[in-house]
């Protein structure tokens, strides 16, 4: 459905092609577009404010959006299909590449699903480190969102401040896993390894500084009249609309629906941490902004508690079940069984039941669900990821209806989409 502008003085062939394209869109755009009363305009796939490669076909009445047809798939990499050809452990690096702004959350979604399928235990220390990683990932992801969202709306400097702090978080991820972004640190049954000795001091230093940095962001934006003008009353989502279109995460909570999987269906021990779930009132772009800012502070609270627990909780960081989790390197020189398990796990993997499960976690963007259907052997029959960006882009036509073209940029930014997450 490639649609160019209606040719003014077109040859007969061009005219026919234009009419053929329109025929495909009949029923999707209004009749006024067919008669030429409204304008069809392409936004993307290389528009800087579409956060990747999203293409929107907008139908405009003057500057007002009548409908919008999102076109996705430019970043489709067949991750779900590739996982079908890998043993369960080896699929973890693929999950990093879905939502590339918070790979830890994807690792966690996949690991939690495999653990549920296998009925596998995770040691307490591993759970605490997982929570630490997930909350750091939430901050890192929100920082990219804050910087790009502000730049979309014309505030250039916030990006530089936000990325300065994000670098520190990525530095900590590099300490943990050797990789800044594609960490593959959280694995079925636990973690790759324990945290290195210089991790905790770095994290504490970060926790000391970061609240003041959040104050700085707020000083730049929260009471800024231009920011308020651009975001208040724009992109309003009613709670029932948000639920009907499957929106989750800050985009749902911005509409005042109190639903956070960390509270409602806790995983990895979130029920033992003390934190609040910020809620919005109006469901507009500004409320979604405020919620993410508050989530920085709540994440800090969780991280403070996690640091205290890490210091007093020694122990293994992966399950002792050697049928599913590889033995430590130190065991390999002493135990024949360890060598056998090591060899078996890294060549064949492990069998999972021929049955299906669905498990979901709360990522920075919303609910990441993972559906796994095993085969009874070492490779899954089907792995499907339900990703928040996918649902949010499918809801864009409803959210953006009736707003101005310039507001579209604010709305896309406020639901926080990542196209790698959407297309998988």
């Amino acid at each position, binding site marked *: 459905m490639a649609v160019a502008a209606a040719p003014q003085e077109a040859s007969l062939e061009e005219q026919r092609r234009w009419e053929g394209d329109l025929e495909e869109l009949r029923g999707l755009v209004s009749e006024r577009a067919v008669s030429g009363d409204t304008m069809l305009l392409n936004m993307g796939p290389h528009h800087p404010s579409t956060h990747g490669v999203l293409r929107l076909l907008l139908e405009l009445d003057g500057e007002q959006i009548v409908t919008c047809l999102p076109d996705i798939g430019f970043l489709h990499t067949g991750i779900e299909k590739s996982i079908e050809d890998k043993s369960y452990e080896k699929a973890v690096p693929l999950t990093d590449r879905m939502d590339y702004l918070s790979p830890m959350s994807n690792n966690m979604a996949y690991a939690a699903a495999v653990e549920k399928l296998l009925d596998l235990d995770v040691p307490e220390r591993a759970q605490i480190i997982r929570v630490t990683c997930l909350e750091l990932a939430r901050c890192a992801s929100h920082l990219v969102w804050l910087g790009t969202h502000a730049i979309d709306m014309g505030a250039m400097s916030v990006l530089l401040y936000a990325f300065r702090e994000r670098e520190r978080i990525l530095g900590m991820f590099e300490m943990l896993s050797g990789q800044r972004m594609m960490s593959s640190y959280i694995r079925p049954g636990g973690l790759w390894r324990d945290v290195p000795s210089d991790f905790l001091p770095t994290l504490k230093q970060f926790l000391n500084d970061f609240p003041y940095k959040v104050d700085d962001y707020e000083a730049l934006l929260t009471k800024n009249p231009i920011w308020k003008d651009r975001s208040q009353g724009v992109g309003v989502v009613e709670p029932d609309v948000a639920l009907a279109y*499957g929106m989750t995460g800050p985009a749902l909570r911005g509409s005042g629906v109190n639903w956070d999987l960390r509270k409602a269906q806790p995983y990895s021990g979130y029920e033992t941490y003390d934190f609040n779930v910020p809620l919005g009132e109006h469901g507009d772009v500004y409320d979604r902004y405020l919620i993410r800012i508050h989530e920085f502070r709540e994440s800090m609270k969780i991280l403070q508690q996690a640091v205290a627990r890490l210091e007093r909780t020694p122990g293994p960081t992966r399950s002792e079940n050697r049928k599913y989790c590889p033995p430590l390197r130190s065991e390999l020189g002493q135990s024949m069984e360890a060598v056998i398990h090591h060899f078996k796990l890294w060549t064949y993997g492990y069998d999972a039941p*021929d049955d299906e499960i669905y498990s979901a976690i709360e990522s920075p963007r919303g609910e990441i669900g993972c559906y796994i259907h095993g085969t009874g052997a070492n490779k899954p029959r089907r792995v*499907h990821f339900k990703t928040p960006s996918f649902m949010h882009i499918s809801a864009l036509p409803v959210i953006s209806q009736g707003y101005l073209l310039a507001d579209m940029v604010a709305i896309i930014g406020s639901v926080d989409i990542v196209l790698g997450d959407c297309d998988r």
Partner: protein
Amino acid sequence: MEIPAARDPVQMARDAFGEGILHVKHFRGETTIVVAAERLPEALGFFRASPGLVYNMLSDVSAVDYYPDDYGAAYDGNQSDYRPERYGVCYHILSMLYNRRLRIKAFADEADPRLPTGTTVFPAANWLEREIADMMGIAFEEHPDPRRLLMPEDWHGHPHRRDYPLGKETVAFSFNVEDIHAHKPFAKD
């Protein structure tokens, strides 16, 4: 306002649909209810609206392909998973009020896989079903927008099917050579 007590979805579904409920499965604390394909939208509407159930949100729609040999007549009845046809489509619905999930599953046959759409009940199903129609080749009847979603519109085949090769070319055997040649772009003389 008083919230009505939570009720057992399996029992309520059996009462309401009788023969329409083909199978019920419990695994790892999850409940799967297999409904007859033609009653799928009706069942989704029932679970969404009935007091005591109120599954108000569609979390996910995912499809599974039971190719090559363990479905239909070859299905081993001892397995916990029920698979009378080749394709299974799972609607994962979530009740925020009672904080629980449920999987509604329907099967589509191999020759002409099609199911009625759930979009009428859950608008969120629109893209999720489009993805399945695109990647798994299951047609959703009366879907408001049945175009391809992730693959290009001139793509042949449905990549998530189990008989679709992964990055390699299909090996032509006598049983599938005609099917392959029908789609393969040969150099025209």
